């Protein structure tokens, strides 16, 4: 029996020299699981000159680092090669990977390469009678699935913002073990550079008041309505993924899993259904008011106040009243 048979591995994620919040969220949950299974929490950190980052992973019992110039920036092919080598050697009970842009390239690839079951979009995970049981949110968050892994080794991809990050943060310095890079040859995927959007546009993470627009707005020509509302409120305008994908607002305005996480005083969601990928970006806002024509929209589960109605009736009226009251 290998040491790792009860271990929970957490693949740490970092960008621009900072560990992502979801890394700590996973570590916290891993601590809970390992506590029950009697195994270790092991973090895996790939990168270059990563000792500073590794030191922050104190919630883990052990941190494996693979430190190589070729891993300085995230490279899906290289990352999979390194993780495949490490995981097939260590054979942990459970491997946790963030359900993010980077995580997507890792989780499914490792599942296929190692022939280990994968349960994606997890909002919860437990070990029951030696089996990993995870709860996954699919169909835009409308349906939950409790899935049981039939393998001795399981991979799960974890939704960001589900587990508390505080549980994964510890002051203690972890044991770090350096692992030599497995891959040596030049790869088929080559990192060319990182583009960070220009400052100058609004930083929605710093705005106190946000009006957010979703698919319900219908067409680009109607964006003016929510712009007026934002102006009347003195708020900044942001949006859910479909609006950004359509090019109606710039990427810096995107709230959600592949956008930004915001914690404003007010988040006024207009025509947003509330898929988990969006909710994780805004559910900690202090006051959430949502307008949607669908009474069953998941946004109403995180909102403080909800309006089931036609945004084309409510929004112009609200803008008008706000301007009137101000005057």
């Amino acid at each position, binding site marked *: 029996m290998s040491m790792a048979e009860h271990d929970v591995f957490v693949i740490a994620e970092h960008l621009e020299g900072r560990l992502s919040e979801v890394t700590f969220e996973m570590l916290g949950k891993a601590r809970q699981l390992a506590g029950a299974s009697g195994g270790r929490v092991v973090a895996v950190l790939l990168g270059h000159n990563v000792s500073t980052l590794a030191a922050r992973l104190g919630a883990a019992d052990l941190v494996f680092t693979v430190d190589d110039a070729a891993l300085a920036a995230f490279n899906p092919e290289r990352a999979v090669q390194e993780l495949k080598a490490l995981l097939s050697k260590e054979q942990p009970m459970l491997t946790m990977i963030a359900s993010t842009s980077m995580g*997507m390239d890792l989780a499914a690839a490792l599942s296929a390469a190692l022939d280990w079951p994968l349960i994606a979009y997890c909002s919860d995970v437990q070990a029951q009678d030696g089996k990993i049981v995870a709860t996954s949110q699919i169909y835009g968050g409308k349906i*939950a699935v409790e899935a049981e892994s039939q393998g001795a080794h399981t991979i799960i991809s974890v939704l960001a913002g589900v587990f508390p990050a505080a549980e994964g943060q510890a002051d203690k310095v972890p044991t770090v073990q350096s692992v030599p890079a497995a891959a040596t040859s030049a790869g088929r995927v080559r990192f060319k*550079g990182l583009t960070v959007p220009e400052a100058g546009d609004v930083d929605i993470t710093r705005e106190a*008041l946000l009006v957010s627009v979703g698919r319900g707005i219908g067409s680009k020509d109607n964006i003016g309505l929510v712009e007026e509302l934002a102006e009347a409120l003195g708020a900044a305008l942001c949006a859910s993924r479909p609006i950004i994908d359509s090019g109606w607002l710039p990427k810096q305005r995107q709230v959600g899993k592949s956008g930004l996480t915001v914690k404003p005083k007010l988040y006024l969601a207009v025509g947003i259904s509330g898929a988990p990928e969006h909710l994780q970006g805004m559910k900690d806002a202090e006051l959430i008011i949502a307008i949607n024509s669908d009474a069953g929209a998941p946004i109403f589960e995180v909102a403080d106040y909800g309006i089931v109605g036609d945004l084309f009736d409510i929004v112009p009226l609200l803008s008008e009243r706000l301007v009137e009251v101000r005057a």
Partner: protein
Amino acid sequence: MNIIVPVKQVPDLVEELEINDEGTDLERDMLKYRMNEWDESALEEALQLKELHGGTITVLTVVSGDADVDEMLYTCVAKGADRVVKVVGDFEEQHDSHTTARALAAAMRDMPCDLVLTGVQAADDLDGQVGVLLATFLDLPHISVVSGIEVDAAARTATVHQEYAGGIMATFEVDLPAVLGVQASRAVPRYAPVSRVRQAMKTARIEEIEVGVAVGSGATVRRMFKPEAASHAEMLEGEPEEIVERVIEILRERGVWRV
């Protein structure tokens, strides 16, 4: 350039989703299906690249049970796909991503391929994303969450952007053939005029490839359910005017808006 576009149908979220009596799957009789919206973006990207570089687009979809995929495939033809292929075999009723990827890999074995474009994800990806699984089974490089694809046909490489949070993007160069998980296409997926779809129904041929693959993802569904809301919003009722007044009151009460 030979572009392969694996697509799939997913339950249309416009419909109310109900759970079956056993509590292990959706009540499928009541469902309406639509093409996975990310696959629509992948197809649009393929069409745009074909307009730039020439070549052929082959759309593949894996069929199981009685699922009717014909209309979806004819719509792909109407948009400009050159070949549409059904992958059939002894699959379970509702196949998972792993089975789908294995079936696609088997079907693609003898297909000329320079680039594989597929949607980055789908609403029913319980066991992970098909594109990445497929790439791994085929031993092809893969990049997910891609927007912005440029192909250098002569050099047999593509330059792509991978999107991270907050508008940050990584640029990668990848050797072709490769699998790209498309997040967003450079243009809104085009509309297929109905007359073109109907014409495709009359003149286009749907090919079939039969494969035999291992079935299952290694995880079983114990229970499928509608998540109970931990809490729920206080709903504001009444005429729009009343609701608007109430909203302003709330904003004042919470100190969000000082007027």
